């Protein structure tokens, strides 16, 4: 608290109050001595006029008159005593008393002249004719002395020397002097001198003086302190990228993936009793092994210690970090204290977007008409059966890929279908499926088995990396000779896959398959996730004569090639009456026939997931 007073004639330094106590103050509350030093004074050094000169310029003041009056009074008293002869004192005693009165009068006169000189100097024009009212404020506590200086010249550099003298009351200890000096620019300044006085009773004397920048002055403050144990400490977290030449900082830093951040956790005892720190008293879950700290485990008053730890930057983004530290005061001096440090942040920006073309390639197979599902495992078939293949390509790089150079020696000619629509590039994260078939022939039967591997090339956009060519896994089919001229037909298969069947009898010839312009059934595309509103299922119309849709076995509608729109046969379905759960939507597809071949039929199935409304009362814990 600052006491603002009107400028006084002053100069004797105000006395500080004694130890504070009473309602509203804690036992070890700091004793506070606030002093306003108001100096109507000041002065350019060159204007510090001698008393006689000032007196000549300013004329008599009330103080001077008072001093003269006091001197006159003392002289008069002396004369009166001598003249009356009635004094009861001896002549020697009278002389001593008279001399004392004269000395007192002289002192008062000197004081009055000094004050008058100061006032006159202040009132004289000082360069710009301004009057400076210097103010000082001092706060004493057992932990620190806080200085405040105000109304100093805003221009130039102000220099202040300070000294704090503290000594225990009644315990005979030697005074301790803490010198200090402050340099500042601007009219105001606040500074702190650490005190950290151990528990006890103290007298304290703080003075400050300044002489420069056109000013000269001082103040001297006395006070008392009653100090009890006041444990305290600060904790600061600092960081630096390992290997950097810069210093540790609490400011955000930027590193790269894989960089190591070195951390420092600096604790400083700011109380007035020593503190103990154990290894378990420092908690930093986002840091590695913590080491360091006070050598003996005890941090002396005013001392600092540093813990260290490291962390490797593993992810892109911000990595904030802070430490929690507990210090334990001596027994009886209070409970443990826990502080959380400032939070430091290490930023890891996204790495440069290096083009990284990559794709995954997987080949699956199934024997058409067996009702099985696609697999990469070995299958067994007989001559005349058809093997359906699915080749799943997934772009797992970071650039789109245009797929080319598809090579699969076991795909019968003309059966290859699928892939990105219109040969478009496969977006990052997307997948596409090729299909083809192979009819097991006599050569396969003679060999007993055959293997199959797909090779595919992904071409990134120009300048974004080199083409990537991958081989798929290898699938194996064991082939037995056909026992007779079997009839191949199919039933629908579960899952989002389909089978190709033939209505022809006997072993279909390779040429028969080739007769179709698009002999492979088109994939059926449906919605993923929940359906709550109208949704569409569609398939490519190329080569399709007709398609009949069934939902859970119930016929919905038949579309023919005439219903194709933009190359697709699409059915809009209202799921309103569907129960919540999974449903099977099947498309029975009849392919167009060409030449001498007969039409082929097959099925594709997708799963439909009917969800409840998303507007509901959740079953959360709340």
């Amino acid at each position: 608290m600052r006491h603002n007073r009107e400028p006084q004639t002053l100069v004797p330094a105000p006395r500080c109050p004694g130890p504070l106590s009473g309602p509203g103050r804690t036992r070890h509350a700091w004793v506070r001595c606030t002093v306003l030093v108001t100096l109507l004074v000041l002065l350019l050094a060159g204007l510090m006029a001698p008393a006689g000169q000032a007196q000549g310029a300013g004329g008599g003041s009330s103080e001077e008159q008072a001093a003269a009056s006091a001197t006159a009074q003392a002289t008069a008293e002396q004369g009166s005593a001598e003249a009356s002869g009635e004094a009861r004192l001896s002549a020697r005693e009278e002389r001593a008393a008279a001399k004392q009165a004269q000395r007192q009068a002289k002192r008062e006169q000197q004081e009055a002249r000094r004050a008058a000189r100061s006032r006159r100097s202040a009132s004289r024009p000082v360069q710009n004719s301004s009057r400076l009212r210097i103010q000082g404020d001092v706060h004493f506590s057992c932990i620190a002395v806080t200085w405040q200086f105000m109304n100093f010249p805003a221009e130039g550099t102000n220099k202040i020397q300070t000294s704090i003298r503290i000594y225990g009351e009644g315990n005979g200890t030697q005074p301790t002097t803490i010198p200090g000096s402050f340099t500042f620019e601007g009219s105001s300044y606040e500074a702190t001198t650490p005190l950290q006085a151990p528990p006890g009773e103290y007298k304290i004397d703080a003075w400050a003086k300044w002489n420069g920048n056109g000013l000269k002055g001082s103040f001297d403050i006395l006070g008392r302190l009653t100090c009890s144990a006041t444990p305290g400490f600060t904790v600061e977290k600092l960081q630096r990228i390992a290997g950097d030449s810069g210093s540790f900082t609490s400011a955000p830093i930027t590193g790269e993936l894989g960089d190591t951040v070195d951390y420092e956790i600096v604790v400083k005892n700011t109380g007035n009793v020593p503190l103990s720190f154990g290894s378990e008293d420092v908690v930093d879950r986002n840091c590695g092994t913590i080491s360091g700290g006070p050598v003996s485990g005890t941090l002396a008053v005013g001392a600092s210690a540093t813990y260290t730890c490291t962390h490797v930057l593993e992810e892109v983004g911000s990595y904030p970090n802070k430490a929690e530290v507990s210090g334990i005061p001596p027994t009886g001096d209070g409970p443990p204290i826990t502080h959380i440090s400032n939070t430091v942040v290490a930023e890891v920006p996204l790495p440069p977007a290096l083009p990284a073309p990559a794709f995954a390639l997987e080949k699956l197979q199934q024997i058409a008409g067996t009702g099985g599902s696609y697999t990469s495992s070995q299958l067994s078939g007989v001559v005349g059966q058809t093997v359906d293949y699915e080749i799943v390509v997934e772009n797992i790089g970071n650039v789109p890929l245009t797929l080319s150079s598809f090579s699969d020696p076991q795909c019968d000619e003309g059966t290859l279908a699928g892939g990105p629509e219109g040969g478009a590039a496969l977006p990052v994260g997307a997948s596409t499926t090729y299909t083809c078939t192979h009819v097991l022939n006599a050569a396969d039967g003679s060999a007993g088995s055959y293997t199959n591997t797909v090779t595919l090339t992904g071409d990134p956009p120009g300048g974004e990396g080199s083409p990537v060519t991958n081989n798929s896994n290898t699938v194996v089919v064991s082939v037995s000779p056909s026992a007779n001229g079997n009839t191949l037909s199919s039933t629908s298969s579960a899952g989002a896959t389909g089978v190709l069947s033939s209505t022809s009898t006997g072993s279909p010839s390779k040429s028969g398959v080739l007769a179709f312009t698009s002999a492979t059934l088109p994939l059926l595309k449906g919605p993923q996730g929940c359906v709550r509103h109208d949704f569409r299922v569609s398939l490519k119309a190329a080569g399709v004569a007709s398609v009949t849709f069934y939902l859970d076995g119930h016929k919905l509608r038949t579309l023919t090639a005439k219903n194709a729109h933009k190359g697709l046969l699409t059915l809009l379905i209202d799921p309103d009456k569907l129960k919540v759960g999974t449903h099977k939507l099947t498309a029975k597809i009849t392919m167009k026939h060409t030449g001498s071949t007969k039409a082929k039929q097959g099925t594709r199935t997708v799963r439909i997931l009917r969800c409840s409304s998303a507007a509901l009362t959740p079953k959360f814990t709340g």
Partner: protein
Amino acid sequence: MRMQLAAGARGRGALFCLLATLTMAATATPAHAGPPATVAMLARLSNLRTVTRWAYPNSEALVHTYPSPGSHVIGQLRFLTVDSQAELYVTLASARMSSGQTWIKIELPARPNGQTGWVPRSALESLHMVNGYLLVDRTTLRATLFRNGRAIFSAPIGVGKPGTITPPGSFYVLEKLVTLNDPAYGPVALGTSAYAPTLSEWPGGGIVGIHGTDEPQLIPGRPSHGCVRMRNADIMRLWSLISVGTPIEIT
């Protein structure tokens, strides 16, 4: 794998470790037929910060401890959440085995928290991708949504009280709901893959949600049974910014 470029040095190291572990695990697993399969290629699918891939299930396939049909079964894919919404699974890695089969490592939204397992690639639909994550900090009582490494949303939260804490760990957004009939949940809510550690008998199994509240004066604070509560304006904003499959990191 080129994918790992984005994951950085540590990501590569982790993948190599995972590859070695999987190779040992897969070779140690008795195969039903043929020679034991080993991991021929491993790719990281998600870093759970800037790139996360997820998928709907394609079947109710069993979830294995290792990419091998002979390994232990720890769960089963399901199509619907307990709120009858579409279940989805965050994918962590893919492994191509020497047998040619590809397996995907997923996070399991099941009790106990933190389970991961492997399913055949064919058990999942195509992969979707998100580019952010939600950080739920129980110390600062704030939730922050990051996208491509940048914070785009932050708000104070209420978390579980002592005894019914909000569980720490890595989770994800399972469903986005519009809440009805109970103002305690606010106007909208997010279902997560996290389960409250102590409330297993709760209806629905004790799922941790992120939702609004009719007691905004308790935010920030620790008033809940495990859910993350937000002021209604904040949850509305978050709900509009976040998508299903987004990872949630609770610290």
